[in-house]
């Protein structure tokens, strides 16, 4: 089940974050080139960047939680007996699930506020409420990831996976 969830996250929220980041990069390049050589920048480029940033940050968050990449003090680990370790892990994951779910709730509040006043972006006049909804959805998925780990032991090797990707050349 864990492998399936891993793939599911990678090819959904992970892929969205990756594409958003790549788009921000290209958008900046096109914007700068356009302004320098063709005297016109991308209309509303700043707003699009902001919206894409939301997808990069919050879209990759479930994967960060999935791989246990949040910054954690592990200096006391040596003093925690092994029988207690799993229990500690469960409690911490439950706590994280609650906090991220609560953050999702806060973003729903924000979305409601935006729709109440009808807030839009300056240039493209896109409604703001859906942006907050997207944040809420990603935060909720993150909370669910932590909730899974309350019941299922997290995949140990994937924890430090960043080291495996090394550089190619």
């Amino acid at each position, binding site marked *: 089940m864990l492998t399936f969830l891993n793939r599911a996250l990678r090819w959904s929220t992970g892929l969205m974050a990756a594409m958003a980041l790549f788009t921000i990069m290209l958008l900046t390049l096109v914007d700068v080139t356009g*302004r320098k050589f063709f005297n016109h920048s991308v209309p509303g480029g700043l707003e699009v960047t902001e919206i894409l940033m939301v997808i990069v940050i919050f879209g990759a968050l479930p994967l960060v939680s999935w791989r246990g990449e949040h910054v954690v003090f592990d200096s006391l680990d040596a003093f925690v007996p092994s029988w207690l370790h799993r229990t500690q892990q469960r409690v911490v994951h439950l706590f994280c699930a609650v906090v991220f779910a609560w953050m999702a709730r806060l973003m729903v509040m924000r979305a409601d506020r935006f729709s109440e006043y009808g807030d839009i972006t300056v240039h493209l006049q896109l409604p703001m409420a859906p942006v907050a909804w997207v944040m809420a959805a990603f935060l909720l998925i993150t909370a669910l990831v932590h909730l899974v780990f309350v019941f299922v032991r997290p995949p140990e090797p994937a924890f430090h996976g960043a080291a495996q990707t090394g550089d190619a050349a």
Partner: protein
Amino acid sequence: QTVFSVSSWVPPTHTLSVAQKNWCDALEKESSGRMKCNILPKGVAAAPGTFDAVRDGLADISYTVDGYTPGRFINTQVAEFPFLGDSAVPTSVAYQHIYTKYFAPLGEHRGVKVLGVFTHGPGIIFNSKQPVKTVDDATKLKFRIGGGNINELSKLMGFNTTLKPAPDSFELLSTGVMDGTFFPDESVASFKLNMIKHATTFPGGLYNTSFVFMMNPAKYNALSAQDKAVVDKLSGEFAARLFGEGWDKVDAASRELQKQQGVARVQADESFIKAVAAKQAELEDKWAAAASAKGLKDPKAVLAEFRAEIKKIK
């Protein structure tokens, strides 16, 4: 004793922070020390979030720019229109009169207790490259602008503009990424825009900005009747005048500085002014439609009264 948490999203030396502090001093004095302010070291929210911060009681008192939350406020856009007035006090006070008479009952600022509304001085075209007298001169340059009516107007005028936050101005202009920006006089000094060489003025300004100074309503309601009376006395025209005077003072100081900096000041050609007026007429029609949809009766008449009121105060 009541202590208000006061938030400001510009540095403590900026005229907005100073005017707010002066208001606080007046409050403390008028209430014989029963009410005072605790000015927070750092703003509780960035400018666009300040309205909500006051509404939710994160700060008790602060101010914001209505245009920073596009889509939220329609009526207040009248204070962003060109050709309003050449100094901030008359436009602020006239705006306050119109606001009390027509806008306040419609409740666009619902959720906060409005202490006052005001504007800054006339908006000017600044640039570091060449004198701008005609529409053609202006369309040759790249400008940084903020949002609001001026953004719509620039689009119609065919200016080459990019929306960037005001504090980015120094970097954009000093590196030559942009040629100019639209600002009131004050900003040349406060953003240290020492690369500016040319200014183009319009009678009454090319644009303006609608500000609101506000208090958390729960905090207000909890005051004694005596204290409420003090706050009410310092609200409305008193607050509008206070902030307006602040803007006028720093505008004048900045004009002195611009002289030393060698900024050449010209007025836009008659043809330029006419072109702006023609495009603005379209925007005013659009605004009138949007405002009547929001419940304002006869918006065009309100606008006319606003302009007449400014002249009267002058």
